[in-house]
């Protein structure tokens, strides 16, 4: 897949090539070139299938990474394209015109990470969190345990150390 990377690099700015398996490789692309690159991969190199779109929250580097995974049915190979977004202004171009199912992933990313995809149909509708009012839940600075303790009523519980508890119960005289 290195040849493919070298071929694409003639036209697009790519970096961080990483060959994970013989038929799986990743590369990082520029945000501005992404739509052109995906179209080129799909139409010229026959990576016709969008496997998934997912995001990673690099909190320490203040970035979001979006990974577009493409699959080529002819040679049974996957190519993952990463783009980095500014975490303070997470806006990305929509790919729903290239792959219709892209809008579902984008709707999910919007709900879970708060990444906006202007123009993607229905991107602002809730996907699984109906009536959610808190921050986007998959961001790493969202403390779910704290939110849960504050929001929901927890059943009080008493915890016992099993060894001493059973000793007390079975052999109280010792």
């Amino acid at each position: 897949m290195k040849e493919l990377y070298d071929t694409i690099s003639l036209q697009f700015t790519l970096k961080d090539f990483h060959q994970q398996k013989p038929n799986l490789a990743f590369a990082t692309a520029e945000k501005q070139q992404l739509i052109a690159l995906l179209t080129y991969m799909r139409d010229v190199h026959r990576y016709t299938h969008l496997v998934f779109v997912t995001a990673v929250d690099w909190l320490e580097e203040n970035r979001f990474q979006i990974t577009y995974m493409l699959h080529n049915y002819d040679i049974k190979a996957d190519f993952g394209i990463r783009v980095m977004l500014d975490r303070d202004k997470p806006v990305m171009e929509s790919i729903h015109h290239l792959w219709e199912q892209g809008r579902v992933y984008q709707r999910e990313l919007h709900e879970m990470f708060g990444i906006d995809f202007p123009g993607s149909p229905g991107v602002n509708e809730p996907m699984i969190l109906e009536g959610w009012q808190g921050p986007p839940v998959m961001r790493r600075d969202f403390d779910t345990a704290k939110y849960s303790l504050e929001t929901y009523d927890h059943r009080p519980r008493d915890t016992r150390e099993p060894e001493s508890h059973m000793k007390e119960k079975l052999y109280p005289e010792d």
Partner: protein
Amino acid sequence: MSYMDKTTGIPEQGITPPIPDTGEMPDREWRKDDKTLTNAELTLEEQDWFCDARPTPAKPAWGPVEKFYNWARANSLWILAFGTGCGAIELRPLVTARYDISRLGMQPRPTPRQASVFMIGGYVSIKTLKRIVRSYEQMQGPKFVVAVCSCAINGGMYWDSYNTVKRIDQYIPVDVYVTGCMPRPEAVMAGFSKLKELILAGKAEGQNLYAEKFDWYKANQKQVIKDWNMPDYNW
């Protein structure tokens, strides 16, 4: 308020004043006494589709008759199983040949209208809680709730999740809990036996509790369901 005769301007006595015709939609404030529900979160049109009466506790019949009723109730438990979480998978062995609960007079039903036991199978997310509340209210009385799984009791392994409620008994009354992650079919059957005992002893009064503490339950429900777009009581 006195009702003026339009031509003479003299107040007429002895006529119940109708709602003055101002050309606007009638003001719904008049509904707001403690006997009626406002369904305020619905649109005006939708408010008319749903009943605005509150649930009322059912009065028990005369002693021996009530005992007979309870015996009959305990021996024909029809289950509405709501597979909210992974624990719902235990219902399949329960109703099929190996454990076969129909020999105990129980059978699964497809609709809340025909069921008397509401079985909640696992963790309850907020989205599911909305459906649970509606299904529970749609069930005909007498109705009982069996909550299966640790997650239904105290959140289980989802205790720190942002989207699951931790105690179902805050939102609907629960008669029997079955612990386990997930409980074996034997444990679920033991839970149903316990429910039978409670019914025979006349202690499974969750429905009446719901009617008596209706405001408390509603307040709890509305506290976690942020986009309340349901009727206040739905049956």
